[in-house]
């Protein structure tokens, strides 16, 4: 009897030990299981810029220089795709009229840029920030020491831990030969007297390195938003708050006889119904779409988020009635 008891205890002990040694079954989570399509990032070897983006950079730089604040620095955030050894630039987000800028610095108006990113992301959810272009009023074609102090830490938050940096200067080789752009060096593109010089910087690197530039055919996905940038700057905080609080908000850049505007569509609970808000710099118009028919609504509120919630409250009250 003693031996039988001992055998039973041994079996129980063995069972407990095996149970403890067995690999724990864990339900995989998104954080632990890598995506099959995750890109193994290496050092950037080139930046591929669409012709749409190149047009934007040269045209808006020329326009900036001829404007009242033309002596000040300006710039653009670059959106695109980060591949293994290259970045593809597909969209530009301008610094904005409310950027903090002078002859020796520029800090972008990031509120409008963040909202613009949300709009552009509707087209392609792979879009990320790949870098920044900014201008120097003089002839310094390389990022400054001050640029390095900020960029060297900032790139750690980018895909691949590396960023693309463009420097715009107005010291191109020949202002008269502006029929087409030239590329005197692999990392330099000139059109007339305007020049963009391209660099890459990775976390931990002691300096920027020249980055080969190549052009391809493609859009600037954010260009339709540029004419309504004053609208984005005026309403960005409230629209962004609305976007984060409500589900399914869609954006569309549009232009009619009243000028450029941003159309927000907020789906209602009943299928096919929606609240549509046309936002312009100094005007906000509200519509309710029912059965495919837009109904004008008289909401006198230029604060777009407050106007939407007033309208939703009114609609909810009518449902109860």
């Amino acid at each position, binding site marked *: 009897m003693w031996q039988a008891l001992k055998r039973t205890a041994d079996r129980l002990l063995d069972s407990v030990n095996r149970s403890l040694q067995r690999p724990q079954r864990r339900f995989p989570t998104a954080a632990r299981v890598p995506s099959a*399509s995750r890109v193994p990032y290496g050092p950037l070897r080139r930046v591929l810029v669409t012709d749409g983006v190149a047009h934007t950079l040269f045209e808006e730089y020329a326009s900036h220089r001829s404007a009242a604040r033309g002596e000040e620095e300006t710039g653009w955030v670059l959106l695109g795709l980060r591949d293994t050894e290259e970045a593809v630039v597909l969209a530009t987000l301008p610094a904005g009229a409310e950027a903090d800028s002078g002859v020796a610095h520029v800090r972008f108006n990031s509120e409008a840029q963040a909202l613009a990113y949300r709009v552009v992301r509707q087209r392609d959810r792979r879009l990320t920030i790949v870098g920044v272009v900014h201008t120097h009023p003089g002839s310094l074609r390389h990022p400054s020491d001050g640029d390095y102090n900020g960029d060297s830490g900032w790139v750690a938050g980018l895909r691949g831990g590396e960023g693309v940096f463009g420097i715009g200067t107005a010291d191109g080789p020949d202002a008269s030969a502006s029929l087409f752009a030239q590329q005197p060096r692999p990392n330099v593109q000139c059109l007339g007297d305007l020049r963009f010089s391209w660099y890459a910087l990775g976390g931990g690197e002691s300096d920027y390195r020249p980055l080969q530039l190549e052009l391809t055919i493609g859009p600037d996905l954010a260009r339709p938003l540029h004419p309504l940038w004053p609208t984005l700057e005026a309403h960005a905080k409230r629209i962004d708050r609305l976007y984060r609080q409500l589900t399914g908000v869609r954006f569309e850049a549009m232009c009619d006889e009243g000028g450029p505007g941003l159309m927000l569509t907020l789906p209602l609970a009943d299928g096919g119904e929606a609240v549509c808000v046309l936002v312009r710099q100094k005007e906000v118009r509200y519509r309710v779409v029912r059965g495919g028919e837009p109904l004008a609504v008289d909401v006198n509120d230029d604060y777009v988020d407050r106007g939407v919630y007033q309208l939703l409250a009114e609609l909810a009250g009518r449902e109860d009635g």
Partner: protein
Amino acid sequence: MDFRPLNDLERRQLINALRGNAESDRAILMNRRDTGFAGAADEVPEEEVINAIRSVPCHY
């Protein structure tokens, strides 16, 4: 018609893709030829980019 159980890697990828679709509205890709599972779109989280945009340093 070929029926076969998914191997361990395929099963984990499919579960991951379904989870991403349900929680983050992330697209599930389909093989055009045989309608098989072809992974999930390599989307970048929105707030990751928003944070990077808002933290762009001052340039000089």
